[in-house]
Every structure is written in C-alpha cells, then in structure tokens.
C-alpha cells in the first residue's frame, strides 16, 4: 500500500506528519497510518508541553528566588532540577478528592480541557523551517480558537466545585478572558495584514523586520492580553491567592491540581512560543536553516523571563480596573494599530500586494512614533477612568509638624 496525503488535506504542509504517514503507509492501511502519524505528533506535543512546563516551573521558582534575593529550590537534584519531578510524583500519589456536591463530570473534565488547550496551541508553532507539527493555513485563527477554550474550562472548574470562592474566581477568569480576547484578536489582525497569511510559518517568513519593531503597539497589547489570559500578575484575579485563596481551582487536589498547574505553566511556555513566532520572528535568525529551533528557544526564554520578571515585581489590579484596562486602553490602542497598519499597507504595497523590507522599515518608523504618542496619551486618559476621584495630593512630612499645630484641624 502506498498512502499519499491529499493536496487538499489541511495538514499537507506538515512534513513530519506526511513523512510518518507515508512511511507507515508502506506497511499499514492508510487509516491506521494516518492515526499513527497523528499520534506521533500528539506524543511529541504532549511531552514537549509537559517538559516545557516542568522546566518552566523550575526556572520560575529559581528565578523568582533570585529576584527576591534568595536561593530557591536547590536541594533535590543538581541545582534543584528534580523539584518539578518530585512535585509531579507527589501530586500523582496524593489523594484525589472530589467534593460532595460537585458536578463530577465537569469537575473531572475541566483540568483535562485546560491541559489540552495548552498543548494544542503549540501544534501550529513552527520550530524551524518547515517543522511545525501542524502547519495549518489558518494557524492564527486556530490559536485564537484554542485559547478561548480555556474560559470554558475555567468556568467548568469554578462552577462544578460547589464553592463560593471558586465561583468568584471562575466569574472573574471568564470575564477577563472574554474581554482580553477582543484586543488580542484586533492586534493579530494587524499581524495578518502585514504577513499576508494566516499560517504561522508564513508569518515567520514575512518578518524580514521582526514585528516587534514593525508593530510595537500590537506587541504591547498582545503581551498584556496574553498575560491576562494566562492569569499572570498583574492580571491574576482568577486565582488571586490573597483574595480568593486559590480561585477556581480551590477544590482541586492531587493529579487534577497537577494538571491545572501543568496547563498554567505549560500555557506560559506555549504562549511565549506564539509571541516569539508572531513578533520576534520565530525561528529566523543567523544560520536559521540549521539552528532555527535554538533561536526559537532563546526567544521563548526571553519572553518567559519577561513574564517571570513582571510576576515577581507587580501587584495585582482589581477586576474592574482590569476590565477598564482592556476596554478603555488596550481596545483603542489595538484599533489605532489596526488602522495605522492597514493604511500603511494600502499605500506601501506594490502591485502584487507584497511588501519589501524597505517598506517594513518605513512602517517601523511610523509605528514607533505612533507607539510613543499613543501610550502616554491613553495613559493619561485612562488615569482618570480607573481612579474614581481626583484627590488632594498626599502631604509630605512637614518638618516640625507638631501636635499643637494639628490640634486645630479637628472638626
């Protein structure tokens, strides 16, 4: 038997799948080899994400430790590297509680859906030239579709737990996810317009100049939006340990909690990969034909470090302020970005609709100016929106401010 992947198959552009499919097709029926090819892809994906999550957990705990001027986990294994393994081992053998009054099906399904979304997102990211595990021609759309699944999972988790804090967390989480989806989609539109394709592989090749320079505003909005969707500080209201104890996953224990954590940290890794691909030109770099994957890894690391750094530094916003930030700050910014990019592309493109590197540089200059104008402008506009009232400035300690002086102030 000789199986050949049809031209119109959505995964035709994925070499690994095609090779495995054709290789297995030599010995097995086509349906089975298609299944095996898919399984191989999934196997790699799941392991990559889980391993990525484990590495990220270790890195985060060590780095946060150092940012806080302490050591971090260093006792189990070299540099404490076995720490995530120990965590996982312990969570697997820990008692798995399902609270009374919980909706069992939703309660069990929620963490699985969370992990699934984190894993699926990585599928379309090209690791190097022609090495996306699934090179979809609608890659960008797929990323958006998959990330919005998380909101369903969070709602399921929070609602099924039969716990008021969990419900609070779920309501917050869903509100945040839905709000931030909008500016994220809008700034992805800008990326798609410049790249001229929805396939992530094409987005990478279109970045003769990295899009962080071409569309700084889009990058800013996208990173802010992603960190909100990932529930990371300063937008981590869904978990909000100091307020909601653990938010939507308050009732989860054992391996289910482990899955939620894996999804959370794996999500950061995959989101970093998507950001690196969309804005930092993915695997492209010197000698990218040979070490494209290394470039991608480095870029993922940089973005992940940014996430860790921000998490270790900032406090959390309140839910209404997060909403205001999304709708009153990020939304207009993403619209401006979309308008600017559309107009630029309209005037700069040649007859075939393509953009040259020079065009990109021109756009860079214009968009940087837009960025520099818009952020302070909208910053000052939002200032009065998120703060309820204009207040007197706080007084400085006046030298010699004595009791006698202030005695008259009593009303």
């Amino acid at each position, binding site marked *: 038997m000789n199986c050949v992947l049809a031209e119109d198959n959505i995964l035709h552009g994925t070499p690994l799948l095609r090779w495995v499919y054709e290789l297995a097709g030599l010995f097995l029926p086509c349906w089975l080899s298609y299944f095996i090819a898919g399984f191989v892809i999934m196997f790699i994906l799941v392991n990559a994400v889980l391993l990525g999550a484990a590495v990220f957990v270790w890195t985060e705990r060590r780095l946060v430790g150092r940012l806080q001027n302490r050591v971090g986990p260093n006792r189990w294994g070299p540099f404490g590297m076995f720490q995530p393994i120990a965590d996982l081992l312990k969570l697997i053998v820990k008692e798995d509680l399902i609270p009374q009054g919980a909706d069992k099906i939703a309660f069990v399904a929620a963490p699985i859906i969370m992990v699934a979304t984190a894993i699926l997102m990585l599928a379309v990211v090209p690791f190097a030239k022609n090495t996306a595990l699934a090179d979809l021609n609608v890659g960008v759309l797929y990323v958006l579709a998959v990330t919005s699944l998380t909101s369903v999972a969070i709602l399921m988790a929070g609602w099924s737990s039969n716990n008021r804090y969990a419900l609070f967390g779920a309501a917050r989480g869903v509100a945040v996810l839905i709000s931030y989806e909008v500016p994220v989609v809008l700034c992805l539109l800008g990326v798609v317009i410049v790249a001229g394709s929805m396939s992530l592989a094409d987005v990478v090749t279109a970045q003769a100049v990295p899009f962080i320079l071409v569309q700084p505003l889009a990058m800013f909005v996208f990173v802010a939006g992603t960190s909100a969707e990932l529930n990371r500080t300063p937008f981590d209201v869904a978990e909000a340990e100091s*307020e909601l104890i653990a938010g939507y996953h308050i009732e989860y224990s054992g391996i289910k909690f482990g899955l939620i954590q894996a999804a959370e940290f794996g999500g950061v890794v995959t989101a970093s990969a998507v950001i690196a691909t969309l804005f930092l030109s993915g695997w492209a770099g010197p000698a990218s034909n040979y070490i494209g994957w290394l470039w991608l890894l480095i870029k993922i690391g940089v973005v992940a470090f940014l996430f860790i750094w921000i998490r270790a530094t900032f406090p*959390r916003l*309140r839910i209404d302020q997060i909403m205001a930030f999304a709708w009153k700050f990020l939304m207009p910014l993403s619209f401006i970005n979309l308008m600017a990019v559309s107009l630029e592309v309209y005037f700069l493109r040649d007859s075939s609709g393509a953009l040259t590197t020079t065009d990109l540089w021109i756009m860079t200059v214009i968009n940087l100016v837009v960025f520099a104008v818009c952020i302070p402008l909208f910053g000052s506009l939002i200032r009065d929106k998120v703060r309820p009232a204009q207040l007197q400035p706080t007084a400085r*300690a006046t030298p010699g*401010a004595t009791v006698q002086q*202030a005695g008259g102030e009593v009303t």
Partner: protein
Amino acid sequence: MPIRTEPMTVNVGPQHPSTHGVFRLRITFDGEEILEVEPVFGYLHRGTEKLAEERNYVQVVTLTDRLDYVSSMINNQAYCLAVEQLLEVEPPDRGKYLRTIAAELQRIAAHLMGIGFFLQDLGTLGTPLMYCFRTREKILDLFEMLCGARITVSYLRPGGVFADAPEDFWPALDRFLTDLPGELSELEQLILENEIVMVRTRGVSTLPLDMAINSSVSGPVLRASGLAWDWRKAEPYDAYDRVEFDVPVAQNGDNYDRFWVRMQELHQSARIVRQCVEQIEPGPVRLDLPLVLRPEPGREAYGRVEASKGELAFYLFSDGGISPYRCKIRSPSLINLTVTEHLLVGWKLADMIVTLGSVDINMGEVDR
C-alpha cells in the same frame, strides 16, 4: 435598568491567607461588591488579662511580648511604664535611651511587616515582603544581641532594661543604620509610586477624620486621616522628649495614605535611633528594684505608648499584692477595627483585603 442579583454571604476567615492571622468576617456580597460586614473576633483570645492577674509584675512582661507579636519591645515598654507609674519610679537615663532605641527599632520592624503584608495583599508575589523581611532580620539580629531572642524579647523590665547592650551591639547598630536608608529607598523605588499600587489604593476606603476620632482610631490610621497626633509628642515618655522627630500626616485617609504614613515613619524612627545613639551616656540601666514588686494598694496607672498600631495602654490596678489586681490592655488593633464596617461596605472583595492590610491589625493584640 439594573439587573437584580442575589446577595451571597461568604465567610472570610478564620483561615484565609490575608486576614492577618485568624480574623473572620461574615460578608454579604452583591457580585464583588460588599453590602454588609460583620467582623467576628476571638479566634486568638488567650485570656492574657486573666493570666496577668495570676503572675507577678515582672512575669507579666513575658505575656506582653505575645500581644502584638511584631512589636514586643513596644508592648514591654507600655507595660513597664504602667508599672513604673504604680511604683512612682523612673528608670535611669541609659535605661531610658536603651528602651527608646529598642522601641524604635521594633517600630521599624513592625511597620515593615505592615507594609510588606499590605503589599502582599495587593497581590505581589512576596517580593516587597521579602525585602521587608530582609531588613527585619537585621533588626532581629540586633534584638538577639540585646536580649537573646528574636520575637518574644522580654527585654524591658519595670525600672529599666534587664541588661546593658553588649559591646558588639553598637557597631552592629551603626552598620544597620548606615544600610537602612539604602534598603528603604530600594523599597520605595520598588513600590511607593508604582502605578498599580496607586490605582488600587488611592481613594479607596477613605476614613474621614471626624469619624476616625469618634471611633477612637489611633496611630498611623488616625494620622493618615489628617490629625498629627502622636503620644510620643503629646506625652513624651522615656527619651522621646530629648529627640527630634516629625509626625508624618496625610490628608485623605485612604489605603494609600495609611501605607504612605508608615513608610515615612520608618525614616523618622531611624532618625530617633540615630539621635539616641549620639546622646546615650554610660550609666546604670536598671533601678535596683526587688524581684517581686509590691506597689501600694489602691493605686492605678494608665501606661500609654504610641505603639506601631496606635495607642497601646495598660490600665493597671494594684491591691498591694505581688500581681496586678486588674490588667486591662487597651489594644489599638482591636479599637482600630471599630471602623471595619465603614471602611469595607461599598467596596469590592479585592479592596477589602487591601484595606485590612492597610489598617495593619495584629490578631494577638485584637483578641489578646
């Protein structure tokens, strides 16, 4: 057309990461907004006042350590002042200075805790808290030199302090005072003008001054509402009449101002310690009082200090025996909570946590 929503009553505490111990609130929420609040106390009520009636005057010092366990020195001070009022004695000068130094160091440590946990409640991943603790550990090392313990110090005694500072204390204190401004400025850079902190705390849970006074609120919370009242100025005890310091006052009485006042007081405390180090002279540190004290019967005393949380006072009544006949503790943390309902109602769940942090309560003192 507003949507009708179901109110939901939630128990916050006694075990909740941000109730600063075992405080409990019953809250009716409408969505995230707080409609009604009922604070529930007593989860750390240990009967200190009763136990104090069974111990002699010096032994009670060990109980006062455990009231507001982040400012033990100041608790000791309030109690010792009360006993000294009963006995009508005054400690020697060096003792007074050592007390002042210890109390001000403790105030720095306590305010750092207040600030650190306030920021923790704001949702930082512990970074400012870690920096606060880093400075606090150095203060605790100094305490270990003075009295051999980190938290439950029992350093002060009626009539002075139990022992002079060891010789290596002074260079260590000097080093600490040299490092302190740098560490504080780091903390200020990190968080004092951070936009997120501003947005989260300015204008939130304001406490008007007349309400603050009528509700017997004291300490930084009162000063944040606009009254420059500090018992160290009004009724100077120990060495406070010999040092210069300012009383930081803020205007708005919101969460940010309470936090800001504490930040400013750190500098003032350091200033007081520096002056004490300059002024202190050799001499005895403790009056030669008997181990078992017997004040005259029928006397009463109201020993009052400006503690880190507010006005801390011990009301002692003596019947001539070896233990206080009545030892009432006027605890600032409890009385500052009188305004809980006013501060919380109408704000959101997230603000509630932050407001509790900014009032800076300590359950050991609230429940005693």
